[in-house]
């Protein structure tokens, strides 16, 4: 029987890792993800898991060790944040390019400088083109569930790609919530043993080389294969989310639609801020305002057809980004959503707000203001500003 327990987002993810029982975990500590591996090292020391824990000297080495272990045929997990993820950059591309289904918990934190330890999405958004599947979680329960589904998605024979499972630093990683832990056996049966459809290193009957030089001759074909695998990942995410729902009672899709079906105005927002926005949606609904919310779960591959379909009946949409794409046509989530809507015969009006950088709090009143602006936008048809910062001093 699954049981309800109170734990932080980090401890929930550490427990998912315990239940997955990976072969290797290589990590270097960084706030706010430190607690995941710290908790996991207790499981290792107590013999609760069979994992080999490698306490390497940097994140660059951590991801390199994961690449080595995964290439050798192991199920491999790891956790990091912010500058730790930034230092892994080079390795992220090598992991995905070699089609190694490594699982990384990214506890979202702002990148330096100025140095900051709190939650925003500049770290994982910066890695959005590294060829990793990216899942986002609103709360500890979703972070736990995503972690358990991640190996099934990444290791799927149609996919074979690394998976990054993200949650908000401190807001979720360090808050205690009641979450439902599955039975160890349920998890074990669900994920099954690690299998590979390609030979791994040191399989003496099927010798292989990984990461061999590809120049003008084959490089682009290899990238094309990655591209196709990424496309196939969408269906796998849906299938795995459905299968997970059957025994856990929590079915997952590509995104969550909250009172969106008949909405005139809607927000699109990732992670914990969606929780805040839902409260405001409920308030507005009571006032008779048709407000809704779309909370993406899968950001890579970005399900643009489905997102367009879900938002097509809205008059005005605001995308809220907890990361900026300096000099871009909007924040990273905005440019995706806006381009997804381009092919609709009638497009909603759109605005973009950059909020919460470096952990700046997003309160109910901040969200109310955005919805009020959407009401006006829907009436007037004219946006005062397309792309601007909120929750900021002038």
């Amino acid at each position, binding site marked *: 029987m699954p049981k309800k327990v109170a734990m932080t987002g980090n401890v929930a993810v550490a427990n998912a890792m315990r239940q997955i029982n990976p072969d290797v975990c290589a990590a270097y500590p960084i706030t706010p993800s430190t607690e995941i*591996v710290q908790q996991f090292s207790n499981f290792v020391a107590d013999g609760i898991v069979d994992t080999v824990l490698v306490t390497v000297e*940097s*994140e660059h080495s951590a991801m390199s060790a994961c690449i080595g272990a995964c290439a050798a045929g192991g199920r491999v997990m790891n956790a990091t944040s912010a500058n730790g993820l930034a230092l892994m950059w080079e390795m992220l591309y090598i992991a995905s390019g070699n089609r190694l289904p490594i699982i990384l918990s990214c506890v979202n934190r702002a990148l330096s400088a100025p140095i900051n330890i709190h939650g925003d999405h500049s770290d994982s958004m910066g890695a959005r083109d590294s060829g990793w599947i990216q899942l986002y979680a609103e709360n500890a329960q979703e972070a736990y569930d995503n972690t358990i589904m991640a190996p099934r998605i990444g290791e799927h024979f149609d996919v074979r790609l690394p998976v990054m499972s993200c949650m908000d630093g401190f807001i979720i990683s360090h808050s205690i919530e009641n979450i439902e832990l599955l039975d160890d056996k349920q998890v074990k049966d669900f994920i099954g043993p690690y299998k590979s459809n390609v030979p791994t290193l040191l399989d003496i009957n099927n010798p292989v080389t990984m990461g061999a030089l590809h120049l003008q001759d084959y490089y682009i074909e290899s990238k094309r294969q990655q591209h196709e695998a990424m496309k196939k990942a969408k269906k796998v995410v849906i299938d795995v989310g459905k299968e997970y729902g059957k025994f856990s009672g929590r079915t997952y899709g590509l995104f969550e639609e909250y009172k969106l079906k008949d909405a005139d105005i809607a927000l699109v927002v990732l992670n914990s801020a969606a929780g805040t926005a839902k409260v405001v949606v409920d308030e507005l609904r009571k006032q008779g305002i048709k407000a809704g919310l779309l909370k993406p779960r899968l950001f890579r591959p970005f399900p643009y057809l489905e997102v367009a379909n879900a938002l097509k009946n809205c008059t005005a949409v605001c995308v809220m980004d907890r990361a900026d794409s300096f000099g871009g046509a909007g924040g990273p989530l905005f440019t995706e959503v806006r381009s997804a809507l381009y092919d609709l015969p009638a497009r909603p009006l759109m605005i973009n707000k950059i909020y919460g950088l470096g952990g700046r709090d997003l309160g109910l009143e901040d969200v109310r203001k955005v919805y009020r602006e959407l009401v006006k936008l829907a009436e007037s048809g004219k946006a005062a500003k397309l792309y601007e910062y909120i929750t900021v001093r002038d």
Partner: protein
Amino acid sequence: MKQVFKRPDSLKDVPFRFCPGCSHGTLHRMVAQAIDELGVREKTIGIAPVGCAVFAYDYFNFDVLEVAHGRPPAACTGMKRAMPDRLIFSYQGDGDLAAIGMSEIIHAANRGENFTVIFVNNATYGMTGGQMAPTTLVGQKTTTTPKGRAVHGEGYPIRVSEMLATLETPYYIERTAMDCAKNVIKTRNAIKKAFTYQMDGRGFTFVEVLSICPVNWGMTPLEAMDWCGGPMKEYFPVGVFKDEGKRVV
């Protein structure tokens, strides 16, 4: 009345926010005193690490640059080459210097860069909550080695001063300890010597300081001082590993 004790000019008038008993506060003061005594405050730039000393700019009364975890030796290199007449030093923990930044320190030392490194060896990553550092003693319990550091898999603690002293170029390398008042003064003198060599353009100078982290060691400050003066010193002997100035004289 004659004033016998005052805050060094190189320290701001703010209380330290380190844990009670931590060496960082005392060591900051020793650095500040050395700078005051040499009268070079207006010429000094410090490079702060990522670690518990990340707030160095809150305490030092001169310019401080904050760089990425492990990168101070490279940042110092750039800064000193751009401004050779300044006193430039980095202040780094054992995670910053001996883990994530190990390659940078070796290469800066090997190039004989003319700046000073103050290396705080407290045998753990303090800021992130007491994980194993490359300098953690064998058997020492940390949050990533709850049963104690094992040689198999985790290796022996790295003696950074001895290792750097195998290079030809470093000018001055000394290890001191913060285990008692006398040795705190010795630490200040070593820092002053390193700074003096730097101002004279002699080359790479390095002072390793055995320090305490009572909170993450799970000890009282007094127990921690004893542990620093005992098992730590036994494995990391204090002393001068290189002093080209002495050889010349």
